[in-house]
């Protein structure tokens, strides 16, 4: 479904701020794979997702989604294949537009937009039903501006928008990190529900090792712009936070840098 072949990305090349973020990263996902990604700060996790989404072009290597080479496609064209939820709850929705208007925009992801009404009567009905599965009471506030919602509500809405038109691949970039623990658990629950129901091929970055172990069928660890560990199936089910930390130190030769990953 997704094939990343040996991609490289260096930011600010030739300056003092030069940073090689991806150094020959390769990853292959089968249809229905739900991969959790962990790694220290600056390991290149978000950079990998941005490379897949096409926020910028990679320096070298190739990215294929469902057999189609998307390496040189601009971000808005890749959106036809990719659904995204960001770490910052502000990033995934248009705050000055209504809940139903945001959903209507998402419904046309990857399609041509013309001079038809953005929001049809059927849409309004469909969206109400759709939003009610989140169990946040948003179905009663469909014409509210999204800017009035809480961070958790916005993330849940962004998740719906990312999956409204089934994406070939769903990218979740620490989408619960900015939320309080209770809300984070709820959004994660909704994620599990939507991903399983639609059998979505998913990559989820998380700072929380427990979440990384509890969700998905595959766990990938990144360090220094590369994947250093790829655990799947039965082996993944047996993982514990301690064994994972131990594994990290063994493979990378360093200590895990993020406290929240251990404590969270």
């Amino acid at each position, binding site marked *: 479904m997704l094939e990343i072949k040996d991609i490289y990305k260096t930011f600010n090349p030739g300056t003092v701020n030069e940073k090689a973020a991806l150094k020959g990263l390769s990853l292959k996902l089968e249809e229905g794979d739900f991969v959790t990604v962990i790694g220290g700060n600056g390991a290149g996790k978000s950079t990998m997702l941005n490379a897949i989404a096409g926020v910028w072009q990679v320096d070298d290597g190739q990215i294929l989604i469902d057999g189609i080479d998307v390496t040189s496609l601009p971000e*808005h064209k890749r*959106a036809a294949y990719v659904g995204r939820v960001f770490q910052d709850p*502000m990033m995934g929705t*248009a705050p000055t537009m209504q809940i139903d208007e945001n959903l209507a925009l998402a419904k046309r992801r990857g399609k041509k*937009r013309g001079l038809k009404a953005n929001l049809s009567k059927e849409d309004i009905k469909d969206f109400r039903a759709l939003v009610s599965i989140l169990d946040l009471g948003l179905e009663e506030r469909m014409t509210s501006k999204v800017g009035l919602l809480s961070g958790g509500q916005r993330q849940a809405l962004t998740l719906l928008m990312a999956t409204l038109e089934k994406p070939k691949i769903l990218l979740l970039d620490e989408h619960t990190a900015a939320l309080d623990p209770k809300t984070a658990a709820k959004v994660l629950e909704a994620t599990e529900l939507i991903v399983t129901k639609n059998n979505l091929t998913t990559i989820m970055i998380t700072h929380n090792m427990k979440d990384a172990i509890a969700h998905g069928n595959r766990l990938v660890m990144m360090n220094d712009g590369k994947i250093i560990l790829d655990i799947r199936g039965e082996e993944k089910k047996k993982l514990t936070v301690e064994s994972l930390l131990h594994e990290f130190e063994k493979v990378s030769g360093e200590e895990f840098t993020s406290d929240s990953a251990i404590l969270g």
Partner: protein
Amino acid sequence: MAFITGLLNSMPGAISQGLIWGIMAIGVYITYKILDVADLTVDGSLCTGGAVCVIFTLNHYPMGFALLMAVIAGLLAGFATGILHTKFGIPPILAGILTQLGLYSVNLHIMGWGTDNGSKSNLPISVDKYKLWVSSRYVRDLAGNNPMIVLVAFIAVIVFVLYWFFGTEIGASLRATGANGNMARAQGINTDFTKVLGLMISNALVALSGALLSQYQGFADVNMGRGAIVIGLAAVIIAEVVFGKIFRNFSLKLLGCVLGAIIYYVVIQIVLRLGLSTDDLKLLSALVVALFLALPYWKNKLLAKGAKKGGK
């Protein structure tokens, strides 16, 4: 008493000017409020619209055609700024300034079209010789040729069309671009395209406003657009302050811009009657707009301070 009658006498003129500049203010609303870009192209494209309209009328083309050409000229001006921004990577404010500067020469040549040296800074047009749709001469007449009738009709059509357009798929993607470009791209919206489109629509309205203004005042002038952005912004901000709480519907917000422009010109009339020199008008406008732009910033600062104290 003389002050009051004099002021009342000047009201039809002030309202007419407000209606004309209100169309311009709607254009500014589209870039400043919807696209979240302060577009300075308008200082040039206002005159472009006027120059194109007058030159076609002087050459005996029908007024409808002359206005259409003015609108197309505005679309092109917005297109130029849009390309400078999206394809040349120039920040939008600077892109607008560049187009505006370039348009100064273009406007001189439009007005000098057919003359020996091909350049002119002022182009008069007489309402006696040509069929103009709006003229300040009839501003106090209670008859069909009163410019306010045509202007209100124009505004009604513009508000109706824009209300429809911003409810369509393309219109909504334009709004999303201004609200959150990141989200727009993630939802497959080509934000370069929507930005160029928004700038084009905005400048088309500004050029139309310029075309009506030059008819109204009986001439096009290369300096007629100087500081236009400030007047447009003033109208938009006045509308927000005065009607922000009651005008929630999009069409009402557009109408609010027109009312904002009318208020602006009424206030200008009052301060002029009170003895302010016309030479000082631009300074006054700049100060008023600066103050109103600063108000929300100061308010937030004060609120933040209060919150800090309250938290202790």
